[in-house]
């Protein structure tokens, strides 16, 4: 299948390794990945901050850039969910990565090997807006050597919330501190999710605490083939 990649602004500038991993997984499965060069940002930050007209222009731009593609994937559930809510015609065309793999392409074993103890944080958008269901867990369950651990209060928000992390920094920090306490208590060496933005929040706190837990995007785990 020919798949257009929507990398997202954060994925492009802060976490390029997530996009690189996404390309690796899809190509390993025999699909063709294309990258429409004109893409920038979906405007979610602007919607969430109350800047509607700016968001509308970015949304229109997104529709122009990706209009010609039947299958578009993004490694960010929150961008996907927001765009589908604002442009319902994207349903069935725009997918979050795990949705695409499990729901559209019918794959759970992507040939990955990752012999580590992993906790999965279901991000709020992936749970309640994009509704990816158990697709990420099924993919993780099929990764060779991976031990999936129970995370306490898993459905509780990590406190990122876009500009909320800045405008309500104290509340946001209280939330991520609790989230990281649960992650560390799970015994995991890696925490994963399907949103890079939430992983910046969680990873930033783990790093501040000097915790021996890495925050990796699901795509980065699925891209690992190791010695299998």
């Amino acid at each position, binding site marked *: 299948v020919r798949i257009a990649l929507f990398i997202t602004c954060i994925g*492009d*500038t802060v976490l390029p390794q997530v996009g690189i991993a996404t390309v690796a997984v899809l190509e390993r499965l025999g699909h063709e990945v294309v990258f429409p*060069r004109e893409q*920038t940002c979906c405007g979610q930050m602007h919607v969430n901050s*109350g800047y509607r007209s700016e968001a509308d222009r970015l949304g229109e731009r997104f529709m122009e850039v990706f209009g010609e593609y039947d299958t578009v994937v993004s490694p960010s559930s929150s961008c996907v969910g927001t765009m589908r809510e604002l442009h319902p015609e994207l349903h069935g065309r725009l997918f979050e990565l795990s949705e695409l793999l499990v729901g559209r392409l019918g794959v759970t074993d992507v040939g990955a090997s990752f012999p580590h103890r992993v906790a999965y944080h279901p991000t709020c958008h992936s749970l309640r807006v994009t509704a990816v269901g158990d697709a990420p867990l099924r993919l993780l369950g099929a990764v060779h050597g991976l031990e999936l651990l129970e995370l306490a209060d898993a459905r509780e928000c990590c406190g990122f919330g876009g500009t*909320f992390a800045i405008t309500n*920094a104290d509340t946001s920090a209280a939330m991520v501190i609790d989230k990281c306490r649960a992650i560390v208590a799970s015994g995991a060496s890696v925490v994963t999710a399907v949103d890079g933005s939430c992983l910046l929040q969680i990873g*930033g706190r783990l790093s501040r605490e000097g915790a021996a837990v890495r925050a990796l995007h699901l795509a980065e785990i699925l891209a690992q083939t190791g010695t299998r």
Partner: protein
Amino acid sequence: MSESARAFPAAAREALADSQLRTNLHNATHTIRDKRDRVVAEVPDWEELREAGRAIKADLLAHLDEYLLQFEQAVTDAGGHVHWAADAAEANALVLEIARAHAVSELVKVKSLTTDEIGLNAALAAGGVHALETDLAELILQLDGDWSSHILVPAIHRNRTEIRDLFRRTIADASISDDPRELAEASRRYLREKFFTARMAVSGANFAVAETGTICVVESEGNGRMCTTLPEVLVTILGIEKLVPTFADLEVFLQLLPRSSTGERMNPYTSLWTGTTPGDGPTEFHVILLDAGRTRALADEVGRQALHCIRCSACLNVCPVYSRTGGHAYGSVYSGPIGAILTPQLRGIEQAPSLPFASSLCGACYEVCPVKIDIPTVLLHLRAKAVQAAGKRSQRATMKTSAWAFAGRRRFAIAHRLGRLAQRPFLRAGTIKRLPGPLAAWTRARDLHSLSSESFRDWWERRT
């Protein structure tokens, strides 16, 4: 009641620093959450009930003018008096007038958010009438000059040691312990005397039936029923959105409300009365229909769904923000997610511009709302209104600049390059520990991942 006009972030910071409060809140909200989840899971048609609740309220709001007139007629026919109040001051003046007409200097109150919203107790006190709270938690707050921090459990922020000390100072003697039974018994003795002597009571309402003029109050303690049956004069203050069209509609809400609020299958007391009945209960009954910003909210097509709210408080208990900051930070008797969308609409967005931003948009509130209020969508809608109304200058610049940079791929690439230059002095082994300006808010508690030295698009270009 000391409502705060402070912005949410500052009020929240203070609350977050109180570790006893954090513990009290965490325990209480998680206990109610779990109870709610268990009893909701028992109901096979819960989703259909939610949809029915939403549809009934949507119909009510679409024809509110007609239902209000129908209600007025029904109450009048049943021997009651109906008054219309455009705002808090009018409603309070009406209650004071009724009290004076009966030469009442003390009246008893059923727990009521609406009366708290309009500051009734203070207004009555200014007019020489003492309004005594009879709900145990409300009484505790009144005795201590404190105010409610939760829609359902007003004293959720207090523990029983604090309450024992308060009772020793006020209504009990020094021998009382912190045993909940002893505390309840002390309040019972104190209140019983008041119920027998009070000649006037004030209540709010959970529901009011347009078809029949019936008022419905649900409660756990039975103190509310004492108020609505013993005194000769009863006044109910009713937000106009509390109506339901027909008596049969109560069937839906009396299933939705207790499971969502206290996590009970059924609440212990449900009181229903229609006008007056000779030889039974009050001989004089008044209803005050209160607007106080509700028609303003009604005019907003997106925001009006906030008026569906049946005050169950399920959204507070699941909210990751509320369960850490508590209710006082919201500066209104309506706290948590529902408060964040209701208060700015009742008072006007310019009066509470920080509230729609007091959410991480996690969506847990929408998931549990028994009448399906899409709180995240209303939050976004109100954020846009807040930005239009005032706008924070620093954020405005960020938003405008970023929108400009995102409008073309070359601009975007340039912005990335400039960002990399700007972050260079702060980089320590790939991460940023401390930043000046607005981003300091991030780095106070978290490291910041740096912008990558090679963007994805540069990698892509290099590869192909």
